[in-house]
């Protein structure tokens, strides 16, 4: 059994998009998402599609990886298309008819519009995680959440938890694979018998996995303690994120783009 590699995993190449501050990218994504829902015509979507394609190009993320997420959306896309275009015993003129079922042009148009919007949303937002390391991302999040600290929100701790959680996803996946192979070698079968039997077959995998996770968490806590970690307050960073003039320019351009979308598209 293989743990599938998830879409949206950081692609370590050097590009202007990678160089942007995580906060800038989050701002751009927010503007992009908002703009995408403001645009209510195919012309607007086309403009966004061109923009997304351009950013994918500049980011030097291989197209295969940038569009990988779309495949996972397949069912949702098909459902969106069908839900909008299928009519039961339609009165109006139809494009295609199968007995009482028909597809009408107006519905098809709407379906394609919504499906295209979902695809753009998926590809555009996945660029954030494709071009930003998890650490940059959580640092950015912490910075964005900072106003919440005044309200007593433990932003530093939340960011640290996110960082650690992200860091341990691949480790845990490897560990799971290791235990599955080891128990298979002792004759465990995960693909035989009833559903209940299959679920029960995973007990010898899950127990060691959790035991090792807790043990690792304990070790990590001790190691952090030994390095005098006392919570997030007043901590400085080795790689402090700095907003460059380029970052502000990108934000300005995207903000303007959003306003223009709201007015014209």
């Amino acid at each position: 059994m293989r743990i599938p590699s998830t879409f949206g995993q950081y692609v370590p190449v050097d590009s202007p998009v990678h160089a942007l501050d995580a906060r800038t990218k989050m701002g751009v994504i927010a503007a992009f998402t908002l703009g995408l829902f403001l645009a209510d015509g195919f012309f607007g979507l086309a403009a966004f599609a061109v923009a997304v394609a351009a950013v994918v190009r500049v980011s030097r993320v291989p197209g295969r990886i940038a569009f990988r997420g779309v495949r996972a959306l397949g069912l949702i896309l098909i459902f969106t298309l069908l839900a909008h275009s299928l009519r039961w015993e339609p009165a109006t003129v139809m494009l295609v008819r199968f007995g009482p079922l028909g597809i009408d042009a107006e519905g098809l148009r709407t379906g394609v519009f919504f499906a295209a919007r979902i695809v753009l949303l998926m590809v555009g937002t996945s660029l954030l995680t494709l071009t930003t390391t998890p650490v940059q991302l959580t640092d950015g999040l912490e910075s964005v959440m900072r106003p919440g600290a005044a309200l007593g929100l433990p932003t530093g701790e939340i960011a640290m938890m996110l960082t650690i959680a992200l860091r341990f996803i691949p480790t845990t996946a490897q560990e799971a694979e290791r235990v599955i192979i080891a128990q298979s070698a002792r004759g465990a079968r995960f693909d035989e018998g009833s559903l209940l039997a299959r679920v029960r077959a995973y007990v010898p995998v899950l127990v060691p996995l959790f035991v090792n996770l807790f043990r690792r968490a304990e070790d990590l806590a001790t190691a952090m303690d030994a390095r005098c970690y006392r919570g997030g307050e007043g901590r400085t960073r080795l790689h402090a994120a700095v907003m460059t003039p380029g970052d502000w320019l990108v934000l300005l351009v995207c903000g303007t783009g959003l306003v223009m979308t709201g007015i014209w598209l």
Partner: protein
Amino acid sequence: MPLLAEGVSYTYETGRASGVEAVRDVSVSVDVGDLVVVAGTTGSGKSTLLRLLAGLLVPGGGSITVDGIAPGAREARGAIAIVFQNPETQFFAETLRSDVAFGPRNLRRPDPEGDADRALAAVNLEPAVYGPRSPFGLSGGEARRGAIAGALAMGARYLLLDEPTAGLDAEGRRAVRAALAAERASSGVVVVTHDPAEFLDDASHVIALAGGGVAFSGGVDALYGDPSAYEGAGLALPPIVRVQLLARGRGMSLPEVTLDADAAARALLAARGGSR
């Protein structure tokens, strides 16, 4: 018929066109009663070779047979038991006996608990004492031996172990070595390790891997006779063996090279011809 690998190669796919060749043209033969030591530094391909022998990987070149059939085949199920690195991290049951019986239960053997008790006794963990204990409360050496018992209990003809003594103290190492020596009575044992010192005395055959290829393959006597290829693979003979080889090199006649410190000292003194 032995567990036999002939000219086996394996290449890991890396996404790039060439891939990484982890094992290249390696041949091994293991019979019941053998203890084959596969030594090599990190990245020499020894763990990959173990997975190939166990049928977990399919060789890209060459062939592997277990008593004449492919190790991945259904009929070969139960013929090979494998102990991975740090096997004590795979405990899951409430008692050690039940955990050790997991393998035999999966193989539908008639008396899994009995198999478990015999395996525990074989690794020198008294079944009556250790059987009912929680596997999570054992010491490092006990846990390792308990996990090895989990593989022994399957009654396989071939037992493959990856770094079985790594991270153990001297006592734990001795206990594992004794357990494996006893296991040879009924099966063929393959030990893969970067530090084979404690297994050299018992080994029937030593293979040194370097960069995926075989740097040395032969008996312990051949190894001691000319250790240059073995040392060229980045491996070091135990200091006590080196001393005896140096003595031989200077013309002292030693009947045998041994890892036993007392025996070596006596032989060296005798060869020097002095009482002290």
